[in-house]
């Protein structure tokens, strides 16, 4: 019988075609907006997570100063960290200011100690050479693009850093402004790069660093190693440091993105609400129009709940139709938008909208719910109509 009531509801919705469509469009727009926003948001989250994974990998821990200011440095005992079971490697990004003499000028410039193991950690350093080659032996130096201009040094020249001679073996390609910020806050263009051991030779003492990376071997448990790293840091007197793993970084990104997403989806959700009011309006009109019909149904034995269910089905159907179409439109918009974004910003990591099962089911259930809830009051009015009055209604 419930199936029959449902079929009756379908008939009624199809019968007032234009009005049903207009009502459905109201829900459609709202659902499409919410779906598009969430889908793009999930896509963004995924591509950022992938990017983080690509740059630092699942099994890498990051040690940063707690204050998070660019100048903050932490004192590390790298040797102690390397002794922790499960730690494959530990490197720091360490930058000092050094007195440099070049053929043209001299002055104080940033000097970064470079550890070849870092390549493995940070595939995305973008330290591309314009001329020459990379560091292979002590006593060599690679210059940032602007540093080479300031010093007037070319590949093959000899310069002096803190009164020690170094051979220029390569010059980096000019980096975009701000390109070095991801890398310990060092402006790449203005820096000089030497092997880490050379830097230690120039600036003896503890391992002071802006950042440090610890690579955990694949068999080891990242959580355990992280706890151990924290213990070792505490024991060796490094208290101002924070150890974060891949999970935490992506979790933080997720939290921020999630907040933004919820805010936007909430705003878009208001339009679903407006759509729901449209459904309510349509259903009130339908109840009024079919008052006599309701009276007839009751006269031939329809119970109140049957009348009510029929009207609820009608409003729920319109909600569901709007939700289904809105879902398709929303996903289409999200895909088009992500294609445009990808082209405009030439993102390297694939960025595409995500259509998760949760989003699809959620959108459908929510739109049916909005429809049904919007229809609740009109349906109750229909069910409560006294049969005689309904029959007498002109």
């Amino acid at each position: 019988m419930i199936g029959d009531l449902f079929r009756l509801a379908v008939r009624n919705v199809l019968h007032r075609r234009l009005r049903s469509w207009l009502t459905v469009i109201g829900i459609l727009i709202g659902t499409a907006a919410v779906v598009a926003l969430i889908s793009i948001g999930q896509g963004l989250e995924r591509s950022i997570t992938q990017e983080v994974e690509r740059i630092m990998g699942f099994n890498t821990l990051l040690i940063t100063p707690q204050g998070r200011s660019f100048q903050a440095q932490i004192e590390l005992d790298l040797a102690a960290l390397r002794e922790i079971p499960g730690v494959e490697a530990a490197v720091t990004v360490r930058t000092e200011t050094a007195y440099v003499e070049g053929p043209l000028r001299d002055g104080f410039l940033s000097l970064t100690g470079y550890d070849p193991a870092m390549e493995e950690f940070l595939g995305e350093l973008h330290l591309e050479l314009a001329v020459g080659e990379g560091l292979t032996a002590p006593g060599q130096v690679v210059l940032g693009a602007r540093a080479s201009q300031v010093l007037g040094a070319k590949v093959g020249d000899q310069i002096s850093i803190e009164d020690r001679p170094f051979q220029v073996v390569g010059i980096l390609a000019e980096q975009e402004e701000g390109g070095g910020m991801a890398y310990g806050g060092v402006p790449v263009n203005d820096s000089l790069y030497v092997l880490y051991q050379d830097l230690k030779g120039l600036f003896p003492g503890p391992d002071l660093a802006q950042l440090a990376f610890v690579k955990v071997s694949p068999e080891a448990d990242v959580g355990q190693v992280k706890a151990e790293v924290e213990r070792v840091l505490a024991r060796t007197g490094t208290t101002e440091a924070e150890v974060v793993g891949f999970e935490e970084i992506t979790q933080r990104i997720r939290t921020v993105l999630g907040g933004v997403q919820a805010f936007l989806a909430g705003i878009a959700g208001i339009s679903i609400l407006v759509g729901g009011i449209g459904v309510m309006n349509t259903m009130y009109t339908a109840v009024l129009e079919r008052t006599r019909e309701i009276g007839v149904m009751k006269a031939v034995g329809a119970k109140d709940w049957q009348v009510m269910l029929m009207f609820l089905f009608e409003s729920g159907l319109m909600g569901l139709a709007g939700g289904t179409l809105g879902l398709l439109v929303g996903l289409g918009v999200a895909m088009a938008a992500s294609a445009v974004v990808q082209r405009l910003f030439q993102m390297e990591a694939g960025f595409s909208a995500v259509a998760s099962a949760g989003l699809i089911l959620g959108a459908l259930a929510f739109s049916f719910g909005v429809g049904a809830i919007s229809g609740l009051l009109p349906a109750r009015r229909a069910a409560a109509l006294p049969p005689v009055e309904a029959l007498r209604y002109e």
Partner: protein
Amino acid sequence: MREALLSLEGVTKVYRMGQVEVPALRGVDLELHPGQFLAVMGPSGSGKSTLLHIAGLLDRPTSGKVRWQGREVSSLRSGQLAELRGRHIGFVFQTFNLIPTLTALENVELPLLFRGLATGERRKRAEGLLELVGLAGRARHRPGQLSGGERQRVAIARALAPDPELILADEPTGNLDSASGREILELLRSLNGTGKTLVLVTHDTEAAKVAKEIKHMRDGLFVGGEG
């Protein structure tokens, strides 16, 4: 004497129109027995439609008792009344009151649908009834595609669908030409012949003659004897 199908005892009905109270029925007694065919006549406003609504359990009296097969119905909830109507009472209205979006067949099926009968069973019964009223060929038509006489016959088939003991007809020929009207009255008479109890409310003397007995109403009361 056999037990009454329906009995009304001192039934009154007062409508409230704003501040004014309008009495529609002022203490009506009525007993309907199986096989009876009663015509209720009277001018408009005499209370005959109100009587029909109360007898059909569509409305509740202001005071007085209504018994269906000996059972007082005033304490029943609306769902139980709907159940009684759906099983035992068929209505035929002046304006047919078919659902315009449904076909003739579906309109006839409607009372059975609300009773929860399976589709196949419903269809078979509805087809049989349309055949009985001479509309077997019009089953797939919608009310808008049928003539007035045909619509009223669909309505009668619908009233017959649950195989009710009682059929209540409120001015069934009021919107029909005289030829169609006569056909409908003949149909009602033949139904009475099969054992159905009928009440026909009308202000048309000719129409009332189809009934076995006639009662007159005026100002909410039965007046005079049998006419």
